[in-house]
């Protein structure tokens, strides 16, 4: 099992390396990024100071070096102007547009994004699991139809519309906060119990909005999977042993039907991050979604590069978690690499 985990992590490191090349190339592909524009302007002004400043910037950000060196400097495998200083060393680069280090720009948003996604995944699973299971066991009864109906509504309603509706009624009936991920009073404040509670209160509506579509899809998938499994001979075997029906479902087919459910974790995360950009804009959430959007628009390449890397990293972690869970749940996967 330890070997299995190590192998997976090893594969993850390689994937991340390949992804970093892709990200770097893609981010640098379109001409006219923020820095080059700035340098071109400084040069065009013709003033000696400006030209000197342009030269300085060229050297500072290694634009005078070949592309592959720039990449290695960015990653931190090649000495840049200031020695080894790249992603591996924890130096995330400089945001030209905002004129602050990337780590400062991204900082809190990163953790809020992780928290938001974590809660969303938990919400999706906590709701989809029982709903899908009940829909399958009581197939073609009112409760199945209700679950199906809720699912279709969830799939068909645009996220931002759902956001507006929930904000309206949430604030009206439950006094839920509207917009943002924390009250203004806590912005840029150090973490405290009160701030944590405030954030949790603000998370409720966004979690529901972002998670509903994924949850609805998952209910449908779990229902279909479980319906397939319910007809399998081993369920009959369990019943023939005298296992009560509820226990027979929970112990045998549900565990089989969980496989695709668990394998979905990896797919869910990137979908949530990219899908939540629009919602984050509408709801004013301080996640990395809106930051990524503006960074891509202004071709602020250290910033966008890092965020893309981070999203990939999140996905790979999700994949790793789902792989480990699958191996834990399903002995066939656990023993696949072993000799017969």
């Amino acid at each position, binding site marked *: 099992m330890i070997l299995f985990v190590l192998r997976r992590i090893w594969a993850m490191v390689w994937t991340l390396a390949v992804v970093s090349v892709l990200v770097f190339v893609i981010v640098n592909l379109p001409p006219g990024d923020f820095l080059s524009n700035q340098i071109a302007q400084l040069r065009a002004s013709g003033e000696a100071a400006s030209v000197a400043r342009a030269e300085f910037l060229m050297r500072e950000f290694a634009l005078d070096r070949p592309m592959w060196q720039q990449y290695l400097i960015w990653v931190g495998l090649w000495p840049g102007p200031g020695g080894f200083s790249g992603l591996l060393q924890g130096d995330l680069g400089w945001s030209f547009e905002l004129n602050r280090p990337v780590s400062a720009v991204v900082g809190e948003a990163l953790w809020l994004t992780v928290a938001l996604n974590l809660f969303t995944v938990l919400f999706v699973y906590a709701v989809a699991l029982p709903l899908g299971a009940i829909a399958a066991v009581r197939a073609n009864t009112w409760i199945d139809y209700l679950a199906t109906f809720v699912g279709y509504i969830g799939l068909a309603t645009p996220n931002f519309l759902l956001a507006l509706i929930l904000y309206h009624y949430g604030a009206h009936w439950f006094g839920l906060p509207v917009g943002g991920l924390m009250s203004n009073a806590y912005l840029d404040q150090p973490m405290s119990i009160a701030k944590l509670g405030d954030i949790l209160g603000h998370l409720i509506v966004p979690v529901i909005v972002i998670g509903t579509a994924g949850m609805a899809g998952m209910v449908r998938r779990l229902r279909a999977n479980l319906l397939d499994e319910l007809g399998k001979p*081993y369920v*009959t*075997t*369990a*019943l023939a*042993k005298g296992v009560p029906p509820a226990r027979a479902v929970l112990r045998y087919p549900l565990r089989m039907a969980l496989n695709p459910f668990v394998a979905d974790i990896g797919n869910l995360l990137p979908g949530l991050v990219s899908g939540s950009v629009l919602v984050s804009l509408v709801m004013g959430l301080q996640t990395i979604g809106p930051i990524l959007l503006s960074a891509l628009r202004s071709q602020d390449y250290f910033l966008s590069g890092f965020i893309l890397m981070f999203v990939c990293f999140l996905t790979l972690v999700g994949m790793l978690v789902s792989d480990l869970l699958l191996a834990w749940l*399903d002995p066939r996967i656990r023993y696949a690499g072993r000799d*017969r």
Partner: protein
Amino acid sequence: MSSAPPPLLAVTDLTVSFGPALPPVVDGLSFSIDAGQTLAIVGESGSGKTLTGRALMGILPRGAQVVRGRAQFRAGGEDSDLLSLPAAALRRLCGKRIGMIFQEPMSALSPLHTVGAQVAEVLELHSALPAAEIRARCLATFAEVGFPDPGRAFAAYPFELSGGLRQRAMIAMAVVAEPDLVIADEPTTALDVTTQAQVLDLLKSLQARRGMALMLITHDLGVVCAMADRVAVMRRGRLMEAGSVAAVIGAPGHAYTRALVAAAPQVAAQAAAATEAAAPAAAADAILAVSGLNKTYPPRRRGLFDRGRGAPVAAVRDVAFTLPRGSTLAVVGESGSGKTTVARMILRAERADPGARVAFRGRDGQMRDVLTLDGAALKAFRARVQMVFQDPYAALSPRMTVAEILTEPLAIHGRLSPHDRRDRAAALMRQVGLSPDHLARYPHAFSGGQRQRIAIARALALDPELLVCDEPTSALDVSVQAQVLDLFRALKDARGLSYLFISHNLPVVADMADQVAVMRAGRIVEQGPVAALFGNPVHPYTRALIAASPEPVLTRRLDLRLVAQGAGPPHDWPAPFGYRGDDAPPLTEVAPTHFVRMAA
């Protein structure tokens, strides 16, 4: 007779239906089982025999329901009607007083739980024993059903066990609570013959030791004769005939039973009949000559940095045979013996190891080296050699009409005009005994036997000279099997076909073949004319196969001593037959054209 104790289970007028408007699938069935007795319920697919067993356990599939009937079950001082018992009360009986064994142990056991956990669950549900005691009871039962290492079996997952051991685990689950009645639904149908013999023997000895009654649901009259005291024959939900095995099989009263008994082929009778017809002009005109055929699969790689651990798998070793034109060679063996791989290599569906030679000589007299053919020559060869597959359900595309299925080979080989192809398809349908009016239908509209006829018609479309048949009847009912075998024989005479017939079913082989090659662990262990091979088998494995093959003959009991001697791996065979690894003795001629792999 009034002093006789009441039966353990008395079923009267059992009727099961899939809906009030539909005809019942089990119709007014009555039978009884005495304590300690074996009742076999025999029938072909769709006869309602499985539903009967399920109705008693209250586990009918969705939609099916018991319309009426009683099933009086007397055990443990209780007397209850299984069919009218509340669900919770019935659950207390199921597993404890009545155990059930299913056909396909792989799918009937949960792949996610250890065998031990699944067997122990029965005791957890039905007894108040402490966990340690439950484990001890399970281990004892595992030992009793023949697990060499009960502790390991307890912790094993089903996919880690062989088919035979899986079925033993299933049996352990059924008997661990010491039930009074075990319902076994086709318990050995999915197993190899030698394994089947061992599992049947296990069931018998368990029954004798524990005094439990057995309700054996099967389609195989051979199994019935080997196992049962009484037999009930079912057809389309109705009871045709019931009584002692000797009476029903020995002197069947009902026409259907007679047909069923007649349709079941027997090794001894067929082999005797073959003696006169045997020995066609040997090797004078060989359509196919194979020599030095080997297939080695590379060891499985497990990752980028993990090369060549584990040994290569030798699937086929040194196979050689000659098939005279117009005759039938049967390759017999159990699963994993390499028989299908041999066929696939001859058809060029799989690449043989270098050094092999497959010579094919068509009617045109031209000799072809099959393994080196390519391009147009290979395509032309393929038209001359066609294949019939085992599963007629999987071998026909469900999205093509029969007409499309039958004309596709003609279109691929560019033969005939579209209109003539259609006529050809109609002629083919007539030839295999189906109506040309059904050409526009899809395969799902046909029964299994009819589908296999369509598959045969497709194989015949290109007017081949050699048909390779891979277990062509093992998915079919006995009476249908007899019809399909008749069709094969008729086609052989009408078209001068030669057959390479791959099968594990000895009676069918004895019925069809002129020559037989018995394969085990990738090698031919015995080869010769049918009469010699079945009349005077020499190799322990051949003898085990014949001994294990259950036949509808009352006097013949399964001889497990012979099975045990030959069914094991090659290094368990007695001298001069046994060998280890690749060090096999050569094929030695013990009688003219009769070869056995043994040290001289």
